[in-house]
């Protein structure tokens, strides 16, 4: 029964090999889908090419429906799958920062690696930038606003955001809205389908403008 790693107690090394293979495949298909091209990626913010939106939403729906059916047929135990704890404020702030980075740089962290695989110079600068950001965040996180390390129990503004709005370690939409996973899945699917229709309409409208 899946997840195999936990049901059969696979060690980290096996996990790394599997992650490596899946990672290569993921990167390959992203590249083939045109996700290594920052112009194409940035076009979604001008509503001219919504491929990214469509691909990502399709992936979400596929995974969601897959989880529901695999669980139903007893192939997968959802309780054993690791979920990130939900800190809603950090998620919002992180989402905004990532969005700005995406529209300015033309990449998200994953696609910048895809771009680097085809030796795009801007992708290397993007990777350098986010690694620098990670480094600065990591080094300054334990410090207070004055630049001095905090005592036990004290929290800086950043740490407050980082740990604020904790909705739970395994927060899921069905639990949050107190309904079944199937109903949430159906609603998300309807939103996705409406989104796809809307995206095509937008592409037709704004995409043509660019060509003319």
């Amino acid at each position: 029964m899946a997840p195999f790693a936990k049901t059969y107690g696979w060690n980290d090394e096996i996990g790394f090999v599997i992650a490596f293979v899946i990672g290569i495949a993921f990167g390959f298909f992203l590249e083939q889908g045109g996700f290594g091209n920052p112009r194409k990626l940035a076009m979604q913010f001008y509503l001219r090419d919504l491929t990214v939106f469509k691909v990502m939403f399709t992936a979400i729906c596929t995974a969601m429906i897959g989880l529901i059916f695999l669980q139903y047929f007893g192939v997968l135990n959802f309780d054993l799958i690791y979920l990130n704890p939900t800190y809603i404020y950090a998620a919002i702030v992180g989402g905004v920062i990532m969005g700005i980075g995406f529209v300015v740089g033309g990449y998200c962290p994953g696609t910048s690696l895809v771009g680097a695989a085809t030796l795009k110079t801007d992708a290397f600068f993007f990777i350098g930038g986010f690694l620098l950001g990670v480094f600065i965040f990591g080094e300054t996180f334990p410090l207070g606003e004055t630049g001095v390390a905090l005592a036990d129990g004290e929290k800086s503004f950043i740490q407050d955001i980082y740990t604020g709005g904790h909705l739970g370690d395994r927060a899921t939409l069905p639990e949050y809205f107190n309904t079944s996973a199937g109903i949430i899945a159906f609603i998300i699917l309807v939103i996705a389908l409406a989104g796809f229709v809307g995206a095509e309409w937008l592409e037709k409208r704004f995409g043509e403008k660019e060509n003319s």
Partner: protein
Amino acid sequence: MNRKRYIGLGIGLVIGLIAMIVPAKWAEKESVSMDNKELSLSPQLISNLDKVQLIDKDKISPFTLCDWIIEGRRSYYLIDIRSEKEYQKDNIRSAINIPFMELAKSDYLYGLPKDKLIILYSDTEQSASVLWKVLKTLNYKVYILKGGYQDWQTIVLNPKAPAETSSDEDFNQYKTRASVAAFLKGESLDVDSTLPKRKAKAIIPLPIKKGKDQGC
């Protein structure tokens, strides 16, 4: 929109409708479902079940339990509520095995020692927290093992070796934990062989100021 798009939309909607009807098990909070009527509890006690809430205070951390086992404390009663098969495969030293359903439905419920702490553990916290409620309602001094057997395995039995550049404190802590893990697993272990080689911290010489400031 062309015909293919309509067909795609239609298929999407049908899949969504089927998913809506399929009972998705993770909507239930506990993976183990238990009909309260099957419990040998009075109706009044059953109605009290929802009044008790498990909070962090009711969880014993793996390290605390580990200390107690090493100290040889006898003031607690450790119950493994997983199946007999899982218990036979591996378990926490000093635990006895009373599988979930047996404990939930039988005379065990009334026959546990009231003067000792009762610590329940299952694979994760889920099944243990269901039984915790039942035993709490029966006024036992009951706790659950934080993170269940899974955390016990990852944190206590397989402690992670520190990085090469970690502090002395981390190294010493790891040494203690690795010896404890070996003791609990009944293995003999040369802890030092599992440690990465330490990198000596570079000693940076203080810059000697030359020029104007010299000789002050």
